[in-house]
Every structure is written in C-alpha cells, then in structure tokens.
C-alpha cells in the first residue's frame, strides 16, 4: 500500500483563532497541556478527539494508542503515566463504564491522568449522538469504594480547550485522575476557539523524587500534601500496588487501620486542597432566586437570568465549573444569600440532591429538567419556571 506522508506541522500549540469543533479543541488542549501519550477506543460522540490526536500526537513526538478496548486504553495510559508521561483518555459514557475498575486503580496508586467523557444519550447504547448530562455522578461514585475525584465541566469549545489544559495541571498537581465532563452537544459544537502562544499557557508537572532517592526512607504514597511520584525507569525500584498499602507502598491487607488510612489520605489529598481546585462562576447578590447549572445548560441559565433581570426580576446565577470535589462552601454561601435555588440539568436531577443537601434548610431548592431530556432547556420554559418560583 502506498504511503503518503503529509508535511508535519510539528507545533505543540496550535496558536490562533479558529472556528473549531469542541472535540478538536479538546484534543488541542491536551497537546497544549503537555500530553505525551493518549489512548483510546473509537466511540461516538468522542471519536473526533481520537482522530485529531492520531495525527497530531505523532507530529509533536507523542503517540496515540488505539487500544483493543476501553479497558486496555485506560490501563495503557496509566502504565504510560508511571513512566512520567502526561496521559490522556478520551471516551464517552459506555467507555467510562468499562474503565471504572481501573479508574479506581488510578486513584488508588495516585496516577495523574486526564479522562474526557463526551456524554451521550443513555442509559446503555441509547442515542450516541445526543448530548445528555447523564453521567455526572459517575466519576465520583461509579468505581467501587470510597474515593474523591476531580472533574471539570466545559460549556463551549473554548472551554474544551482551556479546561483540558487545566485538567492536566490538576492531574499533575494532585497525582490523580481528572475528568473533563463534556457532552455530545458541546463536543460537536463549533465556535470560536482562541489558542494562545505556547508560553502563555500555564503547565504544571508532577513532582518526582530526587535522583538516587532511597524509597525506603521517603513517603511516595498517601501524602495528603501529594507525595513525589516514583516513576519507572529511573532506578527508584518503586513498589506500586493498589492493594491497601502504606505511605511506602507496602501492602497491608490485615490491619483495619491500614484500610482507614488508605482511604482517608487519598480522600484528603483532594479535599484538603479543595480551595485550589474548586471553581464556580457566580453572579448573585442577596437575591430572591438563583439558577444553578453547569456545562451547556449553564449558558441557558446565564441567558435566562439576563432576560429575567431585564424584566426586573431579582434573579442570580451560579455556575458549577468543577462538579467534583463538590463546591460545598460555595453552595453554602449561595444558600445564605438567596431565598430560592433552581437547579437546571440536562438529566433527571443527578447533581440536584447534592446541591439541595448542602443548601439544607437555608434556601428552598427546586429542580427543572429540560422539556425534552437530551435538549438544553428552552429559554421560555426556564422563564416560566422562574416566574412561577418568584410568584
């Protein structure tokens, strides 16, 4: 078979202004964020990420590995991360469902990696090209056991780029999997994407023990302040196991306190740094009602608030950018300032109980699903609900 080699762009950062598909922006964000190894398996509506990476990764000296299935993809990526590479795993809901065992593994052995879930209509195979925010709790509670996770929720192709970069930084900083929770609507959306110069993009790299470090004397796991990662190939002689272990990686399956320590420290590693991770966008004063939303729906909420205000209604806006770790204090603050909260999600109310629990007893919290699940709410529909709640 004839092989034609196309000229290499060889630019890590594809600087410039584009009318770009969200999925492509996501792939470019990964590369700009320093991704060196990506692994995936084709799936609608995320495949364009893989298509972009398949070409671009080779051009920038990395590799896109198309695995035999999603399980292999996440495992290969985790393996690559342990060699010191920044790694990336784009997929959609069914892919994440298959990966969950090993997402938990990545959490357990503290592996930086970035996953993208371009959510599609489901449950199960459902309607692959429709965007539903149907997997919002899955990153946190989908894998068995007790753990914390970091997730970001973009609402535009630009944010597909920006948040993917940030996801890499968070993954490296906290040595843990980070999710970008997109959906088919955002993934297939085209919009202006402005990609800055390489030197304007902040990138973080994980800490690694000093050369020649003796791992029997330094803690390389379960440090709430994030232990340096004893990556492979540098002579550290790391023992890495997801069995319950101590700070040095020694397996301990017998002592109950070892399990407690294992779980708590992994959780605290994220929770103690929640201030550096959690991001919300809000625009409310002590108002009557605030709309809470994330992702594509947050654009609907923002516009609905603008319209409502233009009609003189006392409405505020609260967008969750990082659904996980849960922005508990921010929601508490909100619940102190407003009387009522309306949570908008493009699902049947997955995130809503968490908001409601946190606002407990201060603000009254209601939920509004879209008229048709899978389609962002229409403005009229939201306006009607706002008026009803303010009546």
């Amino acid at each position: 078979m004839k092989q034609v080699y196309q000229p290499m762009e060889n630019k890590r950062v594809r600087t410039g202004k584009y009318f770009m598909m969200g999925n492509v922006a996501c792939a470019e964000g990964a590369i700009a964020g320093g991704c060196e190894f990506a692994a995936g398996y084709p799936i609608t509506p995320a495949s364009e990420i893989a298509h972009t990476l398949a070409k671009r990764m080779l051009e920038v000296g990395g590799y896109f590995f198309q695995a035999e299935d999603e399980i292999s993809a996440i495992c290969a990526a985790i393996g690559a991360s342990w060699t010191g590479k920044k790694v990336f795993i784009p997929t959609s809901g069914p892919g994440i469902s298959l990966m969950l065992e090993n997402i938990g593994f990545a959490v357990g052995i503290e592996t930086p990696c970035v996953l993208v879930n371009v959510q599609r209509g489901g449950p199960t195979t459902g309607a692959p090209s429709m965007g539903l925010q149907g997997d919002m709790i899955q990153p946190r509670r989908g894998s068995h056991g007790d753990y914390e996770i970091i997730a970001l929720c973009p609402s535009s192709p630009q944010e597909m780029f920006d948040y993917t970069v940030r996801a890499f930084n968070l993954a490296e900083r906290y040595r843990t999997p980070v999710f970008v929770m997109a959906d088919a609507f955002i993934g297939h959306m085209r919009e202006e994407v402005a990609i800055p110069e390489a030197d304007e993009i902040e990138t973080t790299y994980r800490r690694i023990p000093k050369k020649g470090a003796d791992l029997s004397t330094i803690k390389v796991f379960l440090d709430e302040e994030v232990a340096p990662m004893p990556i492979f190939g540098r002579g550290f002689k790391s023992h890495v196991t997801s069995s319950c272990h101590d700070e040095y990686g020694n397996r301990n399956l017998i002592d109950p306190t070892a399990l407690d320590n294992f779980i708590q420290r992994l959780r605290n590693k994220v929770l103690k740094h929640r201030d550096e991770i959690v991001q919300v966008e809000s625009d409310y004063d002590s108002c009557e009602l605030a709309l809470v939303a994330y992702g594509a729906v947050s654009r609907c909420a923002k516009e609905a608030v603008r319209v409502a205000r233009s009609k003189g209604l006392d409405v505020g806006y609260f967008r969750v950018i990082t659904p996980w770790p849960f922005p508990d204090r921010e929601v508490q603050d909100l619940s102190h300032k407003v009387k009522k909260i309306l949570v908008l999600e493009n699902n049947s109310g997955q995130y809503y109980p968490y908001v409601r629990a946190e606002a407990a007893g201060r603000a009254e919290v209601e939920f509004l699903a879209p008229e048709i699940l899978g389609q962002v709410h229409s403005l009229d529909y939201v306006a009607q609900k706002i008026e009803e709640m303010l009546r």
Partner: protein
Amino acid sequence: MRTDLIIAGVGGQGSLMAGTLLGTAAVVFDNKKALQTQSYSSELRGGAAITWVIISDEEIMYPRVVHPDILIAQAPQAIVRHLSQLKPGGILIVDSDMVKDPPRNGYELIQVPATSIASKEIGNSIVTNLVVLGALIGTTQVVSPDAVEKAIHISVPKSKVDINIKAFYRGLEHAPK
C-alpha cells in the same frame, strides 16, 4: 444582532459544511461570533443532515436555535421537520430542484435551483451547498462574501477552492437583490 439559522438536507448535500464555512467566515474573517451544532453521528448514515448556526455581533450565550430567523431547506423533509419552527416573518431559502412548491405564507421565500446550477453550470453537484450558501449571503449579508471566500480558502483542499468559490458567487448572484 443575533441571527439563528437552520440548514437542513440529507446526507451528502454538504449542509454541515455550509454551516462550518459560514461560521469560519464569521469568526475568523468577519470578527463576529458564531456557533454551530449539528445532528450528526457517524453511527447513522443516510437520512437527515441538519445543522444549526448562530451568527452574532456579540457573545453568544444561549447555544440552541429554537426558532430560527432563517431556514435553508435542501430537501423536502426539511420543510416537514423545521418550517413550523421558523420565526414569523423569517426567511426560507429552498433548493428549488429538491423542494417543489414550498408553502408560501408568513415568511420570505427564496428559491434557488441550487442542484441544477451546481451540476449544470458549475459541473459538479458536490458544490450545491456553496450555491445555497451564496444565495444566503446574497440575501442576508449575515457575513461578508469576502469572509466566505477566505473561509473557503482555508477549509477546502487546494484543488477544490476555485470550483467552490465559483459556486458560491453563482449562488450569491442568484439571490434577489
């Protein structure tokens, strides 16, 4: 000013491509904002191909086209599915080769024999979408013709640039002045 459009046809007519060119022209060359979404899945073949485009001078917040200002219908099903959504007084552009006798009430109707222009005048039915796009720009100036021309340059393979531009201007000329 925000303009909401639907371009609807069947697979292979290039409706999505027309939308992307429009968005590229707006964003990259006209310094406007644009947003495109689509009913698209490689797990589906044949059947409807629909794209929604929003062009605006300001930032686009609400991302859906619920009631378009303009409906471009490249196939009869497009009328069935989307005409009822068209804003009162909106513009309906049809490929008159494909859509015969469109209903005529409550909106501005523009008929362009895009398929025959493309296949007969330009010599390739593949550029029907550009003829339609030309008609749109000729009618509404939602983006500048110049921007579309530039968008074509950066979006289609070199060998296809000329024929696309030709089709675009042929469609543009055809629009009612």
